[in-house]
């Protein structure tokens, strides 16, 4: 049998010289026309709709980031007025968090891969899946409308009473956008949970699931439990702003700190919505590109759930400098430290997986290694901030900014880019140019560190975040800020390169074989790109996840797990 899922006598894709079209009918060429995309219920097409839209907003958020960095090139507030600067960092945060990072991996890679990895034809609720994309788009339109009308200046945190009483910007409209976007996120999470529970192929037991699925399951739990709370909180802020009802207004007996509790009850777990899917991606990449079974599968799987559960109990560490009681602070501090345990379990297990593996430094692996290093820095600096005393000094400084960018960019974004490269051959049926891929991965790594490492130093020196100006008589501050801006420019270049070659490869890239790396997951046992129904026959799973063989063995006896097909030549030279 030549990979189990291929139908008898299925035509093989034409050789790589052909630049015309795919030989087999797949989800991309099955139907044509704009209507076939906008009304599609195919999870793979919806993933591509998401990919297009979130890339757009990533670029927009990036423009805001560059404007922030350009303003901070000089000490004086000269490029933009302070009020404009407030809007710049607010819009940067809102767009990057709500319109890019929250949907990024789940809505693009998760949407595409969850059914493929578990051997299902689609997600459990295809219509709801499409609805979630439309909700996302409606939310995006509302946010952009508010932005074009003058934007919002509260910071992405919408702290009361500034947001409810004093801000003269589009708080309600932006809030409405985030509210709608929340439902998009909830529906995605709901779809994943039900799909993973009920749609697994015969033999695909819970402990044969790829770790990508486990991490998406944990992410979905956070999405369905946390997002409704931010939804009701935003409603309360909007009512308070419109009708002045006073639930967060101390003049009317309300408590502004209650808002902070509500906000962080969602927004702290939301950080794990961003990072957990990346961890799933890294588990896949590390195992595949070092040709080893993942070290400690069960521990990695349960550490995802542990992060999801602990993540709900630590929100108070954002309130150490508020009126929260010191005793509550101590407890939140201790629980925050415990989140480090499952995170460290993952890092150690990835490292142990790499140990004595047949490592190939393909682009996805470069991103995965970047993730492991940068996430470790981001995580360890998080412990500084979870310590009550240190946090008082570091809170609201650039140390915080650097810390969460190491998690969100160094972690979540690296995982997203690594995953996009890893599954690009499956998604588009084309290879990306490996040389450019490795080059841009290095550029991004250098640019990222140059941007954010100086910010750790700025933070310890006491530079506060969210200010358009800083003192000119501190020469070190400007040197570090110039380094950071220079790094941001390099990072921007590094991010534009994949943007170009991904689009280029869709037309001119080499045709991808069904299993280019080769990997053991079910998604690689169907054609690239997959047919609309994913698998011609529902696969029956008789093997454990990650049954990898060292590359030398693979050249002689094939990929492994009972597959007797001829030895597979990796798409890129593995040495």
């Amino acid at each position: 049998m030549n990979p189990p899922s291929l139908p008898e006598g299925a035509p093989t894709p034409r050789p790589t010289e052909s630049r015309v079209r795919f030989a087999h009918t797949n989800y991309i060429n099955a139907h044509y026309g704009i209507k076939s995309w906008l009304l599609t219920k195919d999870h793979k097409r919806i993933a591509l709709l998401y990919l297009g839209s979130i890339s757009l907003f990533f670029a927009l958020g990036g423009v805001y980031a560059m404007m922030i960095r350009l303003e901070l090139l000089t000490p004086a507030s000269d490029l933009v007025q302070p009020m404009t600067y407030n809007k710049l960092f607010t819009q940067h945060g809102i767009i990057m968090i709500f319109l890019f990072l929250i949907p990024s991996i789940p809505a693009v890679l998760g949407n595409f891969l969850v059914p493929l990895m578990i051997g299902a034809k689609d997600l459990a609720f295809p219509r709801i899946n499409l609805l979630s994309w439309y909700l996302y788009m409606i939310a995006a339109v509302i946010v952009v409308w508010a932005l074009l009308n003058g934007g919002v200046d509260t910071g992405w945190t919408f702290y009361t009473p500034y947001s409810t009483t004093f801000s003269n910007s589009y708080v309600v409209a932006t809030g409405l956008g985030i509210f709608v976007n929340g439902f998009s996120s909830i529906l995605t999470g709901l779809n994943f949970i039900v799909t993973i529970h009920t749609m697994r192929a015969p033999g695909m037991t819970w402990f044969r699931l790829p770790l990508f699925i486990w991490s998406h399951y944990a992410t979905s739990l956070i999405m369905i439990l946390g997002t409704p709370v931010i939804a009701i909180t935003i409603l309360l802020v909007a009512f308070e702003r419109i009708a002045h009802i006073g639930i967060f207004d101390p003049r009317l007996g309300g408590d502004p700190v209650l808002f902070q509790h509500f906000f962080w009850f969602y927004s702290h777990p939301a950080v794990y919505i961003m990072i957990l899917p990346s961890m799933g991606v890294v588990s896949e990449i590390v195992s595949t590109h070092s040709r080893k079974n993942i070290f400690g599968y069960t521990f990695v799987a349960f550490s995802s759930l542990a992060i999801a559960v602990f993540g709900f109990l630590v929100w108070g560490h954002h309130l150490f400098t508020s009126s929260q009681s010191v005793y509550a602070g101590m407890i939140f501090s201790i629980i925050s430290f415990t989140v480090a345990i499952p995170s460290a379990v993952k890092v150690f297990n990835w490292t142990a997986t790499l140990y004595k593996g047949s490592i190939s430094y393909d682009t996805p692996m470069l991103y995965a290694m970047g993730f492991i290093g940068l996430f470790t820095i981001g995580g360890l600096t998080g412990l500084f901030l979870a310590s009550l005393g240190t946090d008082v000094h570091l809170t609201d400084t650039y140390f915080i900014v650097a810390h969460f960018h190491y998690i969100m960019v160094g972690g979540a974004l690296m995982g997203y880019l690594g995953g996009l490269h890893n599954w690009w051959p499956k998604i588009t049926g084309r290879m990306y140019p490996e040389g450019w891929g490795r080059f841009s991965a290095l550029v991004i790594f250098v640019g990222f560190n140059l941007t954010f490492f100086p910010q750790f130093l700025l933070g310890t020196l006491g530079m506060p975040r969210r200010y358009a100006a800083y003192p000119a008589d501190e020469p070190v501050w400007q040197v570090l800020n110039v380094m950071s801006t220079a790094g941001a420019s390099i990072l921007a270049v590094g991010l534009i390169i994949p943007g170009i070659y991904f689009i280029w490869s869709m037309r001119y890239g080499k045709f991808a074989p069904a299993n280019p790396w080769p990997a053991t997951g079910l998604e690689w046992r169907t054609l690239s790109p997959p047919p609309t129904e994913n698998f011609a026959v529902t696969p029956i799973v008789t093997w454990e996840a990650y049954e990898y063989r060292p590359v030398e063995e693979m050249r002689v006896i094939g990929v492994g797990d009972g597959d007797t097909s001829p030895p597979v030549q990796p798409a890129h030279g593995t040495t």
Partner: protein
Amino acid sequence: MSSYRVDEIHLTGADEHAATALAHHFDNLEQQREAGSLGMWVFLITEIMFFGGLFTGYVIYRTQNQASFAYASSTLNWKLGAFNTVVLILSSLTMALAVYFAQVGSRRNQIVFLAVTAVLGLTFLVVKSVEYAEKIRDHHVPIQGFWHWDQAQHALPANVTERSVQMFYWIYFAMTGLHALHMIIGIAVMLFLMYYAYRGRYTPEYHSPVENSGLYWHFVDIVWIFLFPLLYLLGAHLTHGGGH
């Protein structure tokens, strides 16, 4: 292209009708039913978290303003609230009966009980509107510029502040308003189910939309079971068990 593909599936009951109810991406009706049911339960969990924010706000502000909340509660019409509680419990019974008749395949009884459920839901909303109208008449809606507390009509006891009464009323409107919105959606769902039941879509093999809508209806009822004592019965001791 039709969204239902009959050719690929295993016909479990060899029932042509059941086959058309099976969506293309499920292997069989059992899997489809399980997915739908789990989906509804997961949705209800998100609903609990959604209402949970307001319940938390209620607990915190009630703890801080015990006396005011008890007094403000006594200015609500508990008799109407109790009447509505009975109406909703009855509607849960009729909903359960509608599900039962869908299971046994009685189309007529199914439609009748769906209709009764919708009518009971509507009754609840009418009574709720009467209560709201009374509060609007008295300017007891806590919107800036509209709110007015007439000391002559409702004299505040010594340990009660108008500010805290206002807070109670805000929470009252937020919670009951959100609940009423869920009732409206529930009634719309009942009408939708009645239409498809009339068309003969639900059979003993395939009736999960009726079951899942039933879960939703019961959930909305249960929310009210919590709201009624928390909002209406706090101040019963102040009025010696009487309304006003």
